[in-house]
Structure formats: C-alpha cells, structure tokens
C-alpha cells in the first residue's frame, strides 16, 4: 500500500506511451475528454473504441491494470445504464416487463453512455498508468506556464504538489503512529459508543496538525538555507523533451476527431 502512495498507479514498462512527454499525454487526455462528446451513433463509438484499444496496445500495460481502473466506478456505470434503460421512453418497445417497458432508444442510450464512461476511464487510466505523479506535475507546470503572465502562481502550485506527493507516505506513517499511541492511552477507534468514537477524532487530528506545522517550519528553514527564492530563474533537474512520437500522437487524435465529425449523426 505504501508503494501505491509513492508511485500511484504507475506501472513501469518500456512502451511508446511511457516514453512520451507528459505534456503531450496531458493534452491528449484533455482533448479526448472533449472529443468523446462528439460521438452519438454506433459508427462514432466504434471509432472511439478502436482508438482506445490501439492506445492501450501502445502502452503495453497488462489488461488487468486497465480493468482494475474500471472497478471503482463499475457499479455507478451500471446504475446509469439502468436509469437510461428504464427512464427513456422513445422508440419501439422491445421488452414488456409489465411494470416497466424497455424501449429501443433506452437500450441504445444506456449502452452508449456506459461505453462513454468506460472509454473515458480507460484513456485517463492510461495516463496515470504510464506516467509517474512527478512527471504529471512537471508536465502540468510547463503546460500552465503561460498563465504566469496573468499572475497565476504556476510554479508555486507545482512546488506544493511535489511537496504533497513527497509527504503523503510520511504523514501516513505519522497518522498510524498517532493512532497507535492514542490507542495505548485508552482511546478507542473501532469500538465503544458512537459518541466516544467521534470524539476520538480530535486527539488524532491535533497531534497530526501540530506535527505538520512543525514539519512545514523545518522544511521552510531547510529550503531557505539552500537559497530557495521562488520560481524565478530556477532551473530544473528533470528535463522534458518533446519528440516526433508526441506530435504524431496528437495528429492521430486529430485524425480521429475529423472522422468523428464526418460520421456523427
């Protein structure tokens, strides 16, 4: 579990998608989320399914990781499927259950919307499966770079994101330690009356916040001692490089978009 807290969902492999620039992957995902709303008939959904499968193939990620990403939302997608199935009252009746009638249009809508969610989840999963959280942070910082002109604190945001990523495992251990320490002092987290269990949150939170305020102070002093003076003129240890593959992938998605525009009904 601790490992997941450090590298996230990243699955190391040597594939085209792994080698791509995080910037282009972020742009691709963003465009895909917009483009998917163009699909409205079987042809356009077929194009998107093929596109998604091709991308999944490029990633060399074992299917079980991709399916794992679908799990948390599976029930909700099934729920929306049934909502459409029962609430849409257009087209011909294909099944009469007495209380409910299932209409052709409802079935169609249900399948399309579920498919939309599955495709969205698969493509966005590909991003997090082939890119480490820190790469995503770097990519975001560079992509949002132009916003510095309107005084949006891009560098600060990226720095805070790196700090949050860095300290999640540390603070998790800390939380665990505090819970154990308080349990040893007689605080009950998993049994006893509800009121007592709710009250037990406070002796967990106070030490956690106090220690994080202390950590913040220590880290700030350490950064100042090393001459941190904000983002201006700061150089980067990790460099991003845009390659032909990145441009190619963007063109590929644009071609797919063009096909969608042609085939949508």
């Amino acid at each position, binding site marked *: *579990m601790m490992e*997941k*807290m450090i*590298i*996230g*969902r990243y699955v190391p492999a040597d594939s085209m998608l792994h080698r791509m620039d995080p910037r282009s992957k972020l742009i691709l995902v963003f465009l895909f*989320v917009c483009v998917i709303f163009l699909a409205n008939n079987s042809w356009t959904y077929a194009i998107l399914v093929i596109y998604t499968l091709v991308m999944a193939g490029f990633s060399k990620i074992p299917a079980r990781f991709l399916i794992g990403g679908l799990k*948390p*939302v599976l029930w*909700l*997608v099934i*729920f*929306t499927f049934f*909502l*459409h199935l029962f609430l849409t009252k257009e087209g011909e009746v294909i099944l009469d259950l007495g209380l409910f009638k299932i209409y052709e249009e409802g079935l169609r*809508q249900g399948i399309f*919307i579920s498919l*939309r*969610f599955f495709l*969205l*989840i*698969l493509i*966005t*999963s590909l*991003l*997090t*499966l082939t*890119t*480490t*959280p820190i790469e995503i*942070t770097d990519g975001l910082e560079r992509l949002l770079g132009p916003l510095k002109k309107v005084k949006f604190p891009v560098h*600060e*945001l990226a720095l*805070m*994101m790196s*700090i*949050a*990523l860095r*300290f*999640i495992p540390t*603070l998790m251990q800390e*939380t665990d330690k505090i819970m154990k320490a308080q349990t040893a002092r007689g605080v009950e987290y*998993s049994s006893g009356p509800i009121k007592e*269990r*709710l009250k037990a*949150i*406070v002796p967990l*939170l*106070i030490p956690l*916040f106090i220690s*994080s*305020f202390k*950590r*913040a*102070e220590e880290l*700030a002093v350490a*950064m*100042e001692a090393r001459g*941190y003076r*904000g983002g201006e003129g700061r150089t980067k240890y990790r460099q991003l490089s845009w390659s032909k593959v990145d441009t190619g992938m963007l063109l590929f998605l644009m071609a797919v978009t063009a096909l969608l525009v042609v085939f949508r009904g």
Partner: protein
Amino acid sequence: MTSDRLKLRMMIVTALFAAIIGILAQLTIPLPLVPITGQTLAIGLAATILGAKFGTLSVLLYILIGAAGIPVFAEMSAGLSVLVGPTGGFLVGFIPTAFFIGWMLEKTSFTFKNAMIANTIGMLITLSFGTSWLKVAAELSWSAAFMSGFAPFIIVGLIKAALASWVGVTVRQRLAKANLLYSVQEPRNLSKTV
C-alpha cells in the same frame, strides 16, 4: 516574519494539508447505516483552519495529486479516471465548497453555528456540482440526476456537516490556544503576500 518567509510556510502547510485530506479520506467513521468517510470532514477542516484562500488551494492540490494517480480518493481510488467518472463532479465541487466555507467563516466568526451554516451550504454546493456533471456526462434529465445524485445525500450530508463543523471549530480552538495558527493571525498581511 517577512512576507516571503510567511508565504513559503503557508505554501508548505497548504501542501501538507492536501496530503492530510488524502489520508483522512481513507479513514471511515462507523456510524449506523451510513459510514462516514473522513473526506468531507477533511475538506471542512482545511477550510476552517487554513481559511478561504489556502483552504481552497489545499483542496485543489488534493484533487490534483489524486488525479496524478495517488490513491487519495475515497476507498483508495485514484487517477484522472475518477474525476471523469460519474461521480467526478462531487470531487470538483469540493473546491468551491472549501472556498465558500473558508470565506464565510472568515467574514463571520469561527463558531459552531456559523460553521454549521457554512458546511451545510457547502454540502449543497458539492451536491450541485456533482449532480450537474452527472446530468451532463450521463445525459440524464435534471429530475433523474437530482433523484440519483442530490436527494439521497441530503440527510447524510447534514450529519457530515454537523460533524465537520464540530470537529473543525474544536480543532481550530485548540490550535489557536497552542498559538499555531500564524496563518490566521495575520490575515491582512497574508493576502498581500501571494
């Protein structure tokens, strides 16, 4: 403390709070019928302790690290895929929620009553965002989206809001007593620094 030094400290505290939201979101408080996750609680806490600006930032960071793949969302889920899934709107709604809670408490005072009002309206903001995204992404009618994304969560939301208010105000008082809230002691100063 000079403004640059204060700014750096607030940035780090905000980042650590984002991590704390992620950790608290994994804890469940067992209540009869509906177990409450620490997520809503942590959002309210961040806004109550850090104020509108930094509270909102820490919630934004929480969502960003979750989107980047760290399993900080409810039930250890992670990734941008959660944000674009049917429930993604609720997560995005936490950002304006945190802003509203922080803003209202800064404008009024940090009492349980105000916190309760702020957290309740905050809950409604979260639910509105969640329902709107559900409507658009799942192409539901407004009534169907309301029935599945809004109505069932109002009662639970009120319980969560009460809990978040009580914990938020209590923790804040204790931290203030321990003289740890340098962020909030100099609010005017701070608004100029970033």
